[in-house]
């Protein structure tokens, strides 16, 4: 699948996680923007038309789901994947968020790189 030139937002307060995600996504041709807080992410979404966003569930200034809602307001078509160590896959909160369409996928930390790529491909389909 060709992801060349796709604009992707990565939001995590942990720089190393950003480093990991950026490297995985760059490998498949994505263009990554990094945000370390919800505030940064919100202003970036206002300026750029992202295809996809990878969000941490717990950020220092805002809950990940809250952020997802905010980002959706600016960009209703934004695909959002939640990447978190706080929840597990069958968590009620996660299942609800996927069911209501708030997020398109959930990836638990630590993850296999393929899961990240699958999330991207699933969204860009």
């Amino acid at each position, binding site marked *: 699948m060709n992801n060349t030139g796709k604009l992707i937002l990565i939001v995590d*307060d*942990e720089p*190393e*996680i950003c*480093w*990991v995600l950026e*490297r*995985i996504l760059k490998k498949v041709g994505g263009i990554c923007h990094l945000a370390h807080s919800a505030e940064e992410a919100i202003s970036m979404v206002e300026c750029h038309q992202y295809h996809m966003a990878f969000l941490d*569930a*717990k*950020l*220092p*200034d805002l*809950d990940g789901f809250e952020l997802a809602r905010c980002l959706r307001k600016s960009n209703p078509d934004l695909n959002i994947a939640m990447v*978190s*160590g*706080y929840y597990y896959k069958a968590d009620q909160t996660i299942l609800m968020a996927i069911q209501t369409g708030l997020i398109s996928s959930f990836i*638990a*930390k*630590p*993850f*296999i*790189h393929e899961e990240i790529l699958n999330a991207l491909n699933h969204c860009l389909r």
Partner: protein
Amino acid sequence: MKDAFIKTAPSELLKNDVSNRYEQLYTMLLEAIPFSVLLISNKLRIISANRNFLEKSQKPLSATIGHRLDEVLPLVILEQMDIARRVMQVIETNKPLEGERMTYRAPGVPFRIYYYSLIPFFWRGQIEGVILLMNDVTEQTKLSDEVRGVERHLASIVSSASDLMLSMDGTGNILTWNSAAEMISGYTSKEALGRNFLMFIADEDRSDIEEIFALIERHKSAQIKECSLRTSQFISILISWVFSPLMDSSSRIIGIVAVGRNLTERREFERELIKSQRLAAMGILAGGIAHEIRNPLAICSSAVQFLLDEDDITPEFRRECSEKILRGIQRASAIIESLLRYSYPSEKDRTANVDLVDMIKRTMDLMVQQNTIQKIETKLSIAMDRVIVQGEATLLMQVFMNLFLNAIKAMPDGGLIEVGISQDKANAYISVSDTGYGIVEQNINKIFDPFYTTSSVGKGTGLGLSISYSIVQQHGGEISVKSTVGKGSTFTVTIPILQPVSK
């Protein structure tokens, strides 16, 4: 008396006069005493009887004097006492019959108990008769029975009490030792009596007990002390003692009463409570800690995947990945260590030197994620690198964990937790301030009460502060609180610092 009388009475006239006086005195005495007195001839007839006897027998003097014994005394008494034979025996042997007891129950009258004796009456070398002395001891007997009953009752209270109850003389020698003392100490009452109380006290507490005894002597007041009893198996059992002065009627201290309660069970219960509260606090943190561990795990995992999957790895990139893996493992392992320190109380070496600075930093590490989630900033200001106190690290950690969790709970919309550590010559002071709700003044006295909580059901046990308080108290310290509604609260923990050992 008689000799003195002879010496001081030269004239016969005077002698008669005095003798009349004495006769009257003795007659009066005889009439007045609360005994029945009968003079019985050797023919078993009554020669004289005093007023007490006449009252008791309800017979006039005329129906008594000159009458035979068996006409005067009730049949029961005659039979029970076998009085005729005994009177004759006293006359024959010229030996008094010393006190005997007799219960007399006449129909329709409450029973009476008599104490009687027979004394030979000797006049000019001949036995003229026998004096029968009868004393109604019913009341005394009843009274002493009651006293004995009360005594028995008190004794059974002391003996069946589950607390140790013992008494000792002024020098600490054991006088009484109840069955609880026997059971707990393993020494029987027989083994304990006469030995000094200090022999049953653990070596390290003996000087304290001596001090307490001196205090009792000085202030004549009860003293309370927790110290260990050494059993016959050389096991130390922690006892909460109350020592009270034992005083005579002129308020002189004649001994000490010690009442002691075995604290083993209560301490075990407290430990269980502390443990369960710790685990409850753990539950609150579990999510945050999971996140905190899974982040470095994710970094390690990804770095390894890069190394495995990519073909064109530069030496620089390999190095970068390896460093990240190492750092990630160290981070995860540090969190797990803090967790272990918090959740497993070390059973041996319960008290040790604890560096409060290091311990509080570790506790704060456990809170990092929780703080991030709740948008809480933390500030730590320390006056010195190390503040050493003696105590149980796990327990103290639980105290600060509770204070931090409370601070977080008081700031649902985020805020600032400031932690300050300082010390003076005597104490270490740790303050934990938040910028939360604050505590309403009327509730401030309740916050250390067990099960007091403002949290909704399932959100807080109401045990955190009460357990923290008891832990700090066990370390010889205290917790104080200052709070302003709407501005926040400051909890200050004061713990005595370890005096540096001079070399």
